[in-house]
Each structure stands twice: as C-alpha cells, then as structure tokens.
C-alpha cells in the first residue's frame, strides 16, 4: 500500500493537485492482494499527506485464462483455471494479476 500511495502522491503532485479525493486501484483476483488489508493500510498511511481523507476505490479484475483445447479465453470466478466447457485445466493466465493505480480524483 505504501508503494501504491507513493505512486499516487507523486502523480497527484505532478498534476498540481492540492488535494486527493479518491484513489482508484485495479486489483486482479490472483494478485494476492487482500482488499481488507489494503483498506487498513491505506487508513494508516494517509494522515498528513495530500490524500488525507481520500476514498480508496478498488476495481476488481476477474481471472481470465486461455483454454488451448477450446481455443478460447474464459473467465474464472473462483481463481482456478478450469474451462467451463471442456473442464480441462489451463496453465495460461491472461488476466488477473493486475495491481494498478488506475486513476486519481484531485483538486
């Protein structure tokens, strides 16, 4: 979270912000990030920064895998790589590890 906040504050300063109202993150299902822990760390870190009082918004990105048998991409709702059609397991992750600073809402 410190990395995310530092990145957000740097970007906010570059944009000439006087205040940050919202920090929006994109977090993949397989990123390993625990959303509650993120929120907790965020609250602990923002006091005294430009982002004091800001809202943390999290966009969840579901895991997507490529099924070689069916030659198509599929979305996984439970983090596991089982193709809903042929039920084979895929080793090829296409999306779901994201940990991105998506956008900032600033003054």
């Amino acid at each position, binding site marked *: 979270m410190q990395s995310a906040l530092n990145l957000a504050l740097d970007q906010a300063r570059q944009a000439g912000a006087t205040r940050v109202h919202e920090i929006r993150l994109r977090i993949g299902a397989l990123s390993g990030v625990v959303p509650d822990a993120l929120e907790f760390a965020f609250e602990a870190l923002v006091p005294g920064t430009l982002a004091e009082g800001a809202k943390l918004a999290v966009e969840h990105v579901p895991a997507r895998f490529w099924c070689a048998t069916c030659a198509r991409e599929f979305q996984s709702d439970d983090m596991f790589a089982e193709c809903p059609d042929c039920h084979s397991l895929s*080793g090829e992750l296409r999306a779901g590890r994201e940990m991105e600073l998506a956008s900032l809402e600033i003054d």
Partner: protein
Amino acid sequence: MCKDCGCGLPGENPVGVSAHHHEHAHEHNEGHEHEHGGGHHEGHDHPHPHTHPHAHAHSHDETDHEHEHAVGDEPRRTVEVRQAILEKNDRLAERNRGFFRARGLLVLNFLSSPGSGKTTFIRESVRELGPSLKTAVIVGDLATDNDAQRLRESGAPVVQITTGTVCHLEAEMVGRAVQRLDLAGLNLLIIENVGNLVCPASYDLGEDLRIVLLSVTEGEDKPLKYPPMFQSADVVVISKMDLAQACGYDRDTAMANIRRAAPKARIFETSAKTGQGLDAWREFLLQQQQERKALDPLSL
C-alpha cells in the same frame, strides 16, 4: 510497507543484509520503508512519503490546468494513471534477471508457509548436488540468522537478509545480497524467501523458477486456500513424505488440489530426511541449468 498485509510500517527496523552472524550491514536507513532500504541506486527515484503538501494552487501556467478559479473552489478532476503499483520492483527484478542470465546462473525462489521444511530441503538439495552444481544461497527471515547457520552446514556460501518487519523479499534486497557473494564459477543461486504464502507471491525477484513447498503435514487443501501463490509456481515440492502415513496424508486429494491450483507446475514428492525424490529433483535442476547455460551468449 507491504501492499498486501501492511507489514514493515515506516520507522521500524531497517532491512539488513548480512553475510556474517549478527551483523546488519546497512544501519543508515532507519525511518525509510523497505522499498529503498539503504544504498543508493543511481537513476532511481526514491519516493519518500512527504508530509508537507506542496502549494501548487497558483501555478496554473505550465501544466494541463484548464480552469482559472479562486483558491479553495477548484473543481475536482480525474487523472488517468494506469501504472503498475509494483513497477519499481518489477523493473529491479528484470535487472536482476539480466544480471543472472548473463552469468548462465539458474536462480530459484523458494516459497512456502513457515515450517514446511524449506531450509532442510535446500540444505539436502545442496548436498545432493555436491560438486555437480556450484551453489550459493540467499535466505530471508524477519529476524535471526538461524536458517543461514543451518544452511552453511551444506558447505554452500550463504547470505542472510534480515527483513525486520517485512514479510517478503523484494528484488532490491536480492540485488544487494548478490553483491556479497563470490559469483565466480557459480551455477545455481537458491533464494529462500520469508515463510509466508501470501505477499511473496506478488514480488518478482528475477528468478528463473518459483518453487513452492507443501509439506504433507499442512493439509491437502492448502493449494485451494492460497491460489495466487500456487498459481505462480513453476514447481511444487511436496516435502516430509516420510511423515505421510503418520499424519494420514491423502495423496490423491493433495495431487488433485495442486493440479487445480497450479496446472503447469512440475511436482516432486520428497523427503529431505530419507532422501526420497531427491534424485529426480537433482536431475531436473541439472537439466534446467544446462538450458540456462545454453541461453548464455558468452558460452556459445
């Protein structure tokens, strides 16, 4: 501070790298977070959490400010960023990877829960490999160098990274630790990560292969409880097979669960105590190292 669990709050123990007992190499970085604990890396910015908000309210001439307005009633605007949070770690990991590749070094990152037997398995692996692969070990722990001492029994050079409050290793820590190793003639570098199945999954260290250990005493459903870690594994090593019967280990269920969470991983069933499975593991490493060597432009 870790983006996952909030470990390593600023102001707590600095990260130390030590090749010797009880010696913390970098004591001049107290108060900094672990992303940049000690040492200077030219060309990299060090984002310190500044607490003094810069007064930018009136400098509307040079950037993309669209509106003119009095201080205090500036409208909100949205800035699109789309940047990876661990971009800095990823960049440093790629630098490590290039450094390792150029030396034809095979690099393994060992991950597991605390107590799965990483240290013992690594020690026995080094013994099993003997002179066929010259190996060094980097080991990370929050505190103590007990593991480093146990690993030294294998005869391999060992560098300890003491992470303080940080629950995982980062590429920068590995980059610094490597500088304390004599790399001449080295074929294999083993990194023993901090025992933790959550946060280390997110941090690339520049390794070739991720090895996730699962001991038979931990329960067959562990891969289902920690999918991100297992999903990232290139190899799953099942350890403590000598205890399988005693703890009622259900092999079929364990294998099915590992397959489900880590479909692409190679699986080795081992016991560091009896030596079970270490032959196959040794052959695998030798073959992998040969492949790395073939990638080394200098060896052509």
